[in-house]
């Protein structure tokens, strides 16, 4: 079957414009409606997270109790209703985005840095070093994620930092595996042999040649892990082991709303919706990145 040929774009000089690898990927992704939607929503969420600190006052809008207005259904003054302490649900949800996004990003950042480093070393060095790292990784990943995070949080105490650490640590194994796998594939390619043949040092080879080619799966994994970190964070908060009340973390809002679910379901409905929208957009974005960065994988 004949290959589809890209018509080369011409620039001002009438010469072929070459796009970089990422430029190509971006071009492909622009066509993916789901991915673009995901990107848009994520951007909006980030904006909300940043701006809500300025536009909302923590003490009055977010945690200030107002028993006169408790348990209101959605109305003109409180668009999503109020909770049992009279706090506006919408404001709490908007402010709550700060917790979810920051925990998600920091936890994954921890996992990324630690995981990629360990994975790259394991993949490139091989031998005993690789064995030790992989066995440790196996130990960490043989405990189901949720349980591991539970244990860490309950040991270290309830705080946002500990939550980030707990979730971050449980995400490390995935990054180690992916990095090691791509490093192993790339390491045996001929262009690495060429680099070695001309005398490049090991760290330089890893950084300049191997990692750039391993980037694609790592980027995709990062996006998807942020999504699952947010679910983990809200799950732990739901269980009472995450970010403590009265902070408006979405999971703990859900938990707080349980008692009233029968007659005032929106205390559980809306925060959960917020979680879902956030995670959905990250998943759409992650999928889109995966399709765009490696079209061979696209089905």
């Amino acid at each position, binding site marked *: *079957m*004949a290959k*589809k*040929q890209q018509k080369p774009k011409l620039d001002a000089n009438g010469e072929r414009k070459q796009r970089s690898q990422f430029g190509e990927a971006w071009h492909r992704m622009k066509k993916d409606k789901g991915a673009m939607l995901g990107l848009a929503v994520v951007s909006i969420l980030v904006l909300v997270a940043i701006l809500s600190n300025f536009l909302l006052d923590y003490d009055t809008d977010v945690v200030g109790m107002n028993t006169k207005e408790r348990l209101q259904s959605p109305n003109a003054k409180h668009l999503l209703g109020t909770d049992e302490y009279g706090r506006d649900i919408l404001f709490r949800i908007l402010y709550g985005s700060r917790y979810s996004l920051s925990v998600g990003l920091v936890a994954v950042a921890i996992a990324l840095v630690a995981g990629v480093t360990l994975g790259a070393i394991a993949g490139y060095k091989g031998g005993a070093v690789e064995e030790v790292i992989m066995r440790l990784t196996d130990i960490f990943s043989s405990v189901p994620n949720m349980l591991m995070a539970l244990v860490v949080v309950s040991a270290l105490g309830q705080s946002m930092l500990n939550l980030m650490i707990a979730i971050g640590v449980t995400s490390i194994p995935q990054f180690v595996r992916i990095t090691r796998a791509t490093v192993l594939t790339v390491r045996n390619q001929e262009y690495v042999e060429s680099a070695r043949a001309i005398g490049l040092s090991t760290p330089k080879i890893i950084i300049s040649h191997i990692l750039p080619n391993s980037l694609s799966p790592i980027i995709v994994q990062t996006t998807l892990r942020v999504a699952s970190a947010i679910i983990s964070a809200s799950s732990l908060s739901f269980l009472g082991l995450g970010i403590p009340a009265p902070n408006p973390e979405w999971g703990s809002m859900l938990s707080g709303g349980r008692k009233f679910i029968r007659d005032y379901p929106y205390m559980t409905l809306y925060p959960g919706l917020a979680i879902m929208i956030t995670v959905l957009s990250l998943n759409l974005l992650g999928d889109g990145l995966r399709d765009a960065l490696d079209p061979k994988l696209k089905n």
Partner: protein
Amino acid sequence: MMSNEEVLKVENLTVYYELEEETVKAVNDISFSLHKGETIGLVGETGAGKTTTALALLRLVPDPPGVIKSGKITVCGNDMLEVPVQKLEEIRGKDIAMIFQDPMTSLNPVFTVAEQIAESIEIHEKVSKHEAYEKALEMLEMVGIPRERGGEYPHQFSGGMKQRVVIAIALACQPQLLIADEPTTALDVTIQAQVLDLIKNLKDKQGTSVIMITHDLGIVAETCDKVAVMYAGRIIETGNLDDVFNYTLHPYTEGLFNSLPNINDRKAELKPIHGLMPDPTNLPAGCAFEPRCEYACEACKTQQPELVSFTDTHKAACLRYAEPGFHVARGKKHE
């Protein structure tokens, strides 16, 4: 042994691949026929449309995006493009069979080789499963693989042996027409000769007609009775072996012969055809070979050449032959 029974007749076949942004004109109005026992070589560079033609004969052109725009294909009396699916499945494997290019990917990794051969027999012949398996083992022996290995999986065989299995599958039901799509391209040179011999022996034994798709003129010389040269989806020259090799007409065919290194003249420079085949999504209005042709004239740019008969058997599509006395440098002239 040639008889006049026509096993295959292709008339004005045109196949396009309609993609999102463009259309690939893979096969453009080709016609040829094949009689019982004949072997025709379908020659051309990569991208000339040979594989698409072969797939069309079995109605296996991937759809989407492939579309058979026009044409008629008759195999052993059956109109391949009109026949209902059930009949099609009866014909495939029984009357017409195909050997694909890449043996590494043509076999299903989770079934044993004997199972894969036996499946073909089970479908087309009224025998029990056990008998089919027995016959499959016999086929293995016929292609030179010991029957004890029938229970092994494809990954346990080398490339050459895999190709033998593919041949066994194709010939298991003794088809009248065999299409061999570059059967030796993916193999080592030493193995090539063995595989070609195998095809030749089986063909002689069973009286099969063969379409040998290849870009290698050496293979054509060894195995074929007739030749059809394809360029940019068109047949630009066709005739029997002697016609095309010794009385070469078309500039492209001449170019193919010239680009072969000559073992007798090791000091001579290699003479490749300069340029590339045209983009099949953007074929020129005139002769597709014109940009690379050293005999090209003005008319060639705008007028599409048609196949013209020079003898009963020999045809070529080149405008310059309208001029009396014109002939390409290579090859003798017909009387």
